Structure formats: C-alpha cells, structure tokens
C-alpha cells in the first residue's frame, strides 16, 4: 500500500476503515495540486470528490463570511455526498493545496459497507450543531459575566433620619418589607441590618440607646449603578456583606442590592466558602472550608464561567485563606514587622487548580522573629492540610532564603542583577510577580520598587530576562499544523511550555521594562495597551488567546482531577473537537506573533 494511505489511516475517520476499504480508495484516488485562490466548489454546485488535505488549507465561505477552515488531514465533501446535497459554501484554496481526491461513487460505496465510517460524517454534522449551540450557551454565560448592575435587581430603599427613634424606624422597615434601613446623617449615609439590631438587643441595657443613628454602621460600603455584577460579587465577598446600597451618578441611593439576588446569578458556593473561611474561628475550620474550593471551581467551569474570572475568584479566596492562616499561626508581635507575600503564579492571581505554595516572609530590618523555624513550618503544614501542593522550586517560608530582612533581600537583588544566571532570573521573575496578602504591606511595596529600580538600571539585563521566551518551540509548525509530542505524549502538546509561558513571560518582561505595577497578566496587557506599547487589536487578540489557552488547560486539568490522574499541562489534540482545535490554533498563532514582537523589541537574536 502507498505510504500516503498509511498516513491517511492514522487519522479519523479513515482510521475506522479496514485494509480492504483503504485499497478501494487506493485504486481510485488521485493526488491533485491546486494553487492558492482556486475555487474548488461553488455554492449550489455538487461535490465531485471527497477531498482529503495532504498539505495546505481550504476555506469555506458563505456570502463572504468565513464558515470553516480545513487544514492538513481534514476532509470535506463527505456530508454533501451522503445527503445528496449541493454545497452550501464556496470552497477556496487559501494556501497552496495538495490533496487526495476520492471519486464520489467510490466514497459512497465504501460508506455503504462501513457504517462506522459513514456515521462519522453524519454525527460530525450533529456535533457541529452541538458545538455551535455550546458556543451560544457559552456566549450567554459570558453575557452573565459582563452583566451590569441595573435597577430591576434592587430592593427599594427605606431612608430614615439619624435622629429617628428606634421603634419608629423599625416600624417603617416592617411596613415597607425591607431587610435593611438607610440612615441619613449630616454627612453621608449609614446602614442598619439584622446584625446591628442584634447588637442593639444585646447591648441596649448597658448603654443609653434611643435613636437609630446610634446603632447604624457608618461609614458604609456602596457601589455605583452600572458596575459589573461580577465586581459587585467580588466586593461583597471581600467584605462579607449581604446588603449593598447602590448609588446613582449624583451619589443618591437608588436601591439596596441583596446578596441573595446576586446569588441567583452566580453560584452561591463562592459566597458560602468565603463566609465560612471568614467566620472560621479555628485553624481547623479554616482548613475544612478551604478544601471546598475545588468543588466550586468545577461548578463554575461547568457553567461556562470564563477561566480568568474563576482564577480571579479563586485567587481572591486563596488570599483570604492565607490571611486567615497568617493571623492564626503567626504571633501578634510579628504583624507590624513582617509581610506575607505570594509569588509567581499565585502573585499574578492566575493559578486555578494546582495552587502551588509560593510564599515568602519579609521582615523589617532590626526585627528579631522568635521561633521562626517552628512558625514557618506550621504555616506550611496548614497549607499542606488544605491541599496546596508544596512548591517544587522550594519558594516557601520554610526555606531560609525566602524569609529574610529587607536589607538582606536588597543584597540578594544586587546579586541577581549582577550575575543574571538563569536561576537568578527565575527568582527575579517570581519576585516581580509577588503580592502582599497579610502583615505590613509597605515592607513589600517598597522592596518591589527597589527591585524594579535596580533592574531598570541595566537595560541589557531585561533582554537576558526576556530571552527565555525562546526556550521552548511553538507547538505550531511553519504551515500551521500542530507539532505534537511523541511516545507517552503522542498527539499531545505541552500547553504551558509552548503557549502559556511565552505569553506570560513576554508580558512580564515588558511590564518590568515599562515599570508596570500590576502583577496579573490580563491587567498587564491592558496597561501595555493603555501606555501605547501594544495596539488595541494586539491586546484584544492576546487576551482572547490567553483565555482560550487557560480554558483548555483548566478543562483538561479538571478532567484529570476528576479521574484522579496527576494534573499535568498536556493537552490531547485527539480529544478536542474541530472548533476547539481551531480556537487553539488561532491562540497559538497569536502567541507566535507576540513572540516576534517581544523578540524584535528586545533584539533577542543579539542576546547570547
């Protein structure tokens, strides 16, 4: 048999055929060459052949709109043959085409004898419809994520003067059937909810309490009408509040948003977990509540919530967990002289599933932390118990290198900057991506500024820093075909090395050079667009590409997690549908384009 047909047989649907059927193709098939721009089939014309692409690309258009793109190993014309239907689209060669052509009657004869093969063409039509539907549902989900706070979600406001007698105020509350009161003061508003009433009942005998103003919470957290619901959810989870007054553009209250209503938009698990973590009074309770984060991630993902929002939410919750652990475990004397920071992907707020422990302490100069060994260890052990895997690079507070005084860190920076070995550059990268989650914030803020300043003194250093985006080859070949791995990772690509890392690191290098403070990659892209470094189109493409990459990665990792397999960064192309493959391909193209931008900008070809 011709080698060509053996190659063909390696891919579905031809892998479904036995040797006899393949031979029938061999006796009838021909190889054809078409230059770019050739129209293979016009709208309304019948297909003469089943086309199988050996090399090249064909695009299908309907009324000038691109409907589909076919690449190496893809075939087209099959459905139309089976349905005896003329083509709905115009097929044009967009990249010089070498294809294998099988005459219609031979294809149909083979279908007649091989039902699995025939069904592949028919079901792929159904799948396509399903995919389309899924895409629409996905779109409506993302609509949800970009939904804004509107008046119809709100409860009426019930406003009373601060001098109002408590009983009178409560009567008004009851009459209007509201669960929160706004209190008008000389300046601004306060709020009274169940919590305040409970406090009132408990303490009314000890203190002289007469007016509603005395039991109000003031100042209050408010939000503007039109804010993204997602941000509202974040705000409410951050502060653990159930009632949120909403103001119009003149800062007048127009209604109260109740969490329960917001919850009908989102999973209430997110809120539940934060509240449980927030209200945990023991270390054990914190650990228990934190374990439920995984369940929440799965639920959000299956509802089609964008991975970057899940990451944002998860990192918000993780921050809370870290803060809580810090105050449980770290002695009070430390709080003013110590900062707990998260580094690397945790610092960027981009870890979703495998939230590796990447953490460090910064101590104020002159402060002597007692029992530092023991305390660091119990901190790490608490994280172990929650299920955060330990950091392979040993970036953790149990490593003396990552619990130092400010002056010692600065000495370390000098060494990094001076020697710039690969390991130092990695340390630099993860420190640049750090945020402070508990303790004395300014220790971290100042230190990070020192690092940025030092690095910016050596432009050549940033070029060395950026160089590592060239460490891994793209997963796309010269002709936009996937370059997959071999042996145990056959038909897979490593999405982290080939796509995610070049993107994140390139952006990080640019952010470092431009002195951008944000740590999150999406935020950094936006900043790079704001300061004019990236064009709006490029920034948009990159955000979308990152979203596709992260979603596919999360999808695969959730599958691995659910089937109790080790979580990895390998994505199997065989398990992806054509649409997902196309999306991934586009994303990888964007990554390749971005690599070119970065490598041109830093003139990486000149860096040894």
């Amino acid at each position, binding site marked *: 048999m*011709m*080698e060509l047909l053996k*190659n063909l047989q390696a891919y579905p649907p031809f892998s479904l055929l036995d040797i006899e059927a393949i031979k029938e193709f061999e006796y009838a*098939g021909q*190889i054809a*060459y078409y230059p770019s721009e050739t129209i293979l089939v016009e709208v309304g014309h019948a297909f003469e052949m089943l086309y199988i692409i*050996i*090399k090249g690309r064909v695009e299908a258009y309907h009324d000038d709109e691109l409907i589909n793109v076919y690449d190496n190993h893809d075939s087209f014309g099959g459905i139309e043959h089976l349905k005896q239907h003329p083509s709905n689209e115009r097929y044009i060669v967009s990249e010089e085409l*070498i294809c294998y052509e099988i005459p219609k009657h031979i294809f149909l004869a083979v279908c007649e004898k091989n039902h699995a093969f025939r069904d592949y063409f028919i079901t792929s039509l159904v799948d396509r419809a399903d995919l389309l539907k899924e895409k629409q549902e996905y779109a409506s989900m993302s609509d949800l994520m970009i939904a804004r706070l509107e008046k119809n979600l709100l409860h009426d406001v019930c406003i009373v003067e601060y001098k109002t007698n408590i009983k009178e105020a409560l009567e008004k509350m009851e009459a209007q059937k509201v669960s929160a009161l706004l209190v008008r003061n000389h300046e601004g508003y306060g709020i009274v909810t169940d919590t305040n009433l409970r406090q009132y009942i408990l303490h009314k005998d000890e203190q002289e309490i007469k007016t509603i103003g005395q039991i109000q919470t003031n100042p209050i957290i408010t939000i503007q009408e039109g804010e993204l619901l997602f941000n509202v959810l974040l705000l409410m989870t951050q502060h653990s509040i159930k009632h949120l007054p909403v103001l119009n553009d003149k800062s007048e209250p127009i209604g109260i948003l109740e969490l329960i209503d917001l919850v009908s938009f989102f999973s209430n698990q997110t809120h539940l977990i934060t509240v449980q973590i927030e209200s945990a009074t023991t270390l054990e309770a914190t650990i228990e509540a934190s374990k439920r984060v995984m369940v929440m991630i799965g639920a959000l993902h299956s509802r089609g919530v964008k991975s970057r929002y899940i990451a944002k939410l998860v990192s918000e919750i993780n921050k809370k967990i870290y803060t809580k652990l810090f105050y449980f475990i770290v002695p009070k004397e430390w709080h003013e002289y110590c900062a707990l920071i998260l580094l690397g992907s945790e610092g960027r707020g981009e870890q979703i599933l495998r939230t590796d422990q990447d953490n460090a302490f910064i101590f104020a100069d002159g402060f002597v932390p007692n029992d530092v060994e023991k305390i660091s260890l119990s901190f790490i052990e608490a994280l172990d118990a929650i299920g955060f895997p330990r950091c392979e690079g040993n970036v953790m507070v149990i490593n003396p290198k990552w619990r130092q005084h400010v002056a010692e860190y600065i000495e370390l920076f000098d060494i990094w900057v001076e020697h710039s070995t690969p390991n130092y550059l990695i340390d630099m990268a993860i420190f640049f991506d750090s945020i402070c989650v508990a303790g004395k914030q300014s220790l971290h803020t100042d230190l990070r500024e020192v690092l940025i300043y030092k690095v910016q003194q050596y432009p050549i250093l940033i070029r060395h820093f950026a160089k590592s985006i060239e460490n891994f080859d793209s997963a796309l070949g010269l*002709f936009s075909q996937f370059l997959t791995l071999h042996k145990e990772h056959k038909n897979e690509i490593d999405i982290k090395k080939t796509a995610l890392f070049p993107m994140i690191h390139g952006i990080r290098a640019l952010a470092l050079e431009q002195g951008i403070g944000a740590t999150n990659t999406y935020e950094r892209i936006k900043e790079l667009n704001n300061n004019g470094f990236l064009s709006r189109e490029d920034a948009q493409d990159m955000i979308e590409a990152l979203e596709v990459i992260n979603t596919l990665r999360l999808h695969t990792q959730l599958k691995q997690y659910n089937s109790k397999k080790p979580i990895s960064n390998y994505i199997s192309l065989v398990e992806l549908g054509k649409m997902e493959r196309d999306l991934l391909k586009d994303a990888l193209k964007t990554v390749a384009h971005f690599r070119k931008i970065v490598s041109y900008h830093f003139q990486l070809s000149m860096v040894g």
Partner: protein
Amino acid sequence: MMFSSFKNYWQKKGLKDERFTFLFDDPPPDEFVVFDTETTGLDSKKDNIVSIGAVKIKGNKILTNEALHIYIKQESLISQESIKVHRIRNCDLEGAITIEEGIERFLYFTRNRTLVGYYLEFDVAMINRYMKPMLGINLPNKQQDVSAIYYDKKISLIPQGNIDLRFDTILDTLALPRLQCHDALNDAIMTAMMYLKLQHSHSLR
C-alpha cells in the same frame, strides 16, 4: 530541436521491435511519467534494478490510481549492503518478474510521455542498460529533472550560492510532506509532487 529529431530518426531506425514504435510519437503536452528505480548499487554499468515505481501526471493531478510498482527477479541474492539502502529483502521479491518483462511493462506504461525524475540521468541509464540489448535503442522520451528545475529557480535568487539539491532539502523547501517509507513508488510520488509544485511556483524561499 533539429538535432534531437535527427537523433530520434537514427534511434528509430535502430528499433528492433515494432510493437514499440509508439515511443517516437509526439508526446502529449500535459502528461508526464514520474519514475524512480531502486538498484543494487550506484554503478549503472554493473548494478541491477530491483524495483521500478512510476506514476502519471495529467494536468494538475497525480494519477496514483494508475501507478506502476514492479519488483524484478534477481539472478543472485541481494547483498547485505544494498538491502540496507533500499530495504528490499530477498523475501520481498515474491511475485517479482523478469527484467525483460519489467522493461516492457514500464514502456507500455510510459509510452511516449515526457519522463520526470530526481537525478533522472541515473534511472534512465539503468533502464537503457537493459533496453538497448533488448530493443536496440535507448529511451527516446523527452526528459525533465526536478533537481535541475529546482536549481534553475533557486539560482536566480542566489546567483553565487551553493545550492543544496538533496531530496529532503527540496521537499522541505517546497513544504511537501515527507513519506517515511522510501520505496520506488513513494519516491516517484514525492518527486511528482515536487514537479507539480515547481511548475506552479514563481519563486522559492
């Protein structure tokens, strides 16, 4: 042109077997035969043909459905060295035919079409070695060598350049798929793809 038809005339006079006069008809303009031989060595005076693979090109199509792939019976066992090169073992020669029958089938397949190949000169010399004693003539067909066409297109880009004419290099430059298995037919098919692509491309990278 003059000269070649003159030469053809003398060739035709030498033809000993009338069945093959079609070899001298005018070739059809858009049909070609791409062929490749596997041999026991690289000396066209001494070594033998083990296998012949050929496909026709008509217009923009490679007629793989009418491909020719024949194995030739060997008088002595194939040596270890040459098995390593072409991977044709003695046991693969079951169903092989005599060289005389092979040459005839090749000629009936090729007819008067222009011949195309990669370093065609060698393959033509191999065929001629058997054909001359049998029929009294060498292959009279017009010939086109893809390595020569490739060289001409490439040299116009880098006039002083040293042009890499290796088979795999040409495949890569033309962005053609590489068929893993090297046998006479697969090599002929790859050469046919090269030829089609070279005919249509104006410039090379």
